[in-house]
């Protein structure tokens, strides 16, 4: 915005040379623009810079007396994390799955549908809101850290209360090799 010169035109009379009277006002628009831009920048960076933390509780591991918890087959969902951002899930036990092993992906079109569906199904069977779906997450050696965080994130999204990260067993690796999401060296 240019300052309007309202001082009027010069009626020059007389021979005296007068220095032109200049306005003392400075145009601050650009300065204010810049200041607000910087404010926005600092505001956004200060609140976003703090990292987010996802709390994770692992099951107790006692090496001296290994306790085996038995959990109901029909409430248990096993998720095996394989390579190439693929996973495989089944219900019950590996030797005798209640639902056949299915290869799936991550995200809303992948495992989330199965999680929500199974979670409802289990609640229907038990009829007790405290006895929901139990998810066992079994990352294989070929999966990466992102897969682990992604699947934990899915637990949060699908609101599953009981889940644990457990070691994978050889039978499940064979299962994943069969379905092509785990390549043995």
């Amino acid at each position, binding site marked *: *915005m240019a*300052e*309007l010169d309202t001082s009027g035109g010069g009626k020059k009379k007389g021979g005296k040379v007068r220095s032109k009277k200049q306005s003392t006002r400075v*145009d601050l628009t650009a300065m204010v623009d810049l200041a607000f831009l910087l404010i926005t920048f600092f505001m956004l960076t200060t609140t976003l810079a703090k990292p987010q*933390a996802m709390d994770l509780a692992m099951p107790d*591991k006692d090496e001296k007396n290994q306790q085996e918890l038995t959990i109901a087959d029909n409430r248990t969902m096993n998720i095996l994390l394989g390579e190439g951002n693929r996973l495989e899930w089944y219900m019950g036990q590996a030797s005798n799955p209640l639902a056949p092993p299915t290869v799936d992906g991550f995200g*809303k079109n992948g495992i989330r549908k199965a999680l929500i569906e199974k979670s409802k199904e289990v609640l229907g069977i038990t009829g007790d809101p405290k006895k929901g779906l139990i998810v066992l997450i079994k990352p294989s*050696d070929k*999966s990466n*850290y992102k897969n682990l965080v992604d699947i934990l994130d899915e637990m949060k999204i699908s609101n599953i209360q009981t889940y644990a990260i457990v070691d994978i067993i050889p039978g499940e690796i064979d299962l994943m090799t069969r379905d092509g999401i785990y390549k043995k060296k």
Partner: protein
Amino acid sequence: MPRIKVARKSTAIDMTAMCDVAFLLLTFFILTATARQPEPLPVDTPASIVKIKLPELDIAMLTIGHGKVFFGVKGQKVRELTLEKMSKIYGISFTPEEKIRFSLIESFGVPIGNLKQVISLDGDARNKPGLQTGIPADSVGTRASELNDWILQARYATKELNNKDMRISIKGDSKEEYPTVKKVIDILQKQNINKFSLITSLRAAEK
């Protein structure tokens, strides 16, 4: 009939006050902003929907990336005490100057034998990629791994100084393979730490 003349006003607004306020806010935000510390091991954290902020104090950070593990604990006093405890265990003595320099290092990743060398370097040289090889996470014979000792001593130091339990957070690279992460989790579980945090970045809400 005399016509009413509308006084012609200048279109320029006085920006002085606005400018003052803007700069006041700017100064405030610059002063409150915490400068980002340079990291010796840059990692790309996976995204998640959780929005819980990480606490600032009494927390140790394990950075995992490219098969290496780096360790850092918050608080200069805690760091100094941790180093003292470690030097007793491994029989390597550090001068008071080295201890002070160490207490300013946010995170490091070298075997304790090479720690003196890293301390003597200045900030830029220290954070060069590839210089720090990671803390050994494998146990040698009956002796627990160095990483295990670092975590344990840092916990003792935090308890002694602040009388609080140290929290552990893991900051892993998205591409990191699971066995490395598992190794670290196993070390933690051996010390009966079953609860820890995974550091993630914020995921934009997908609908």
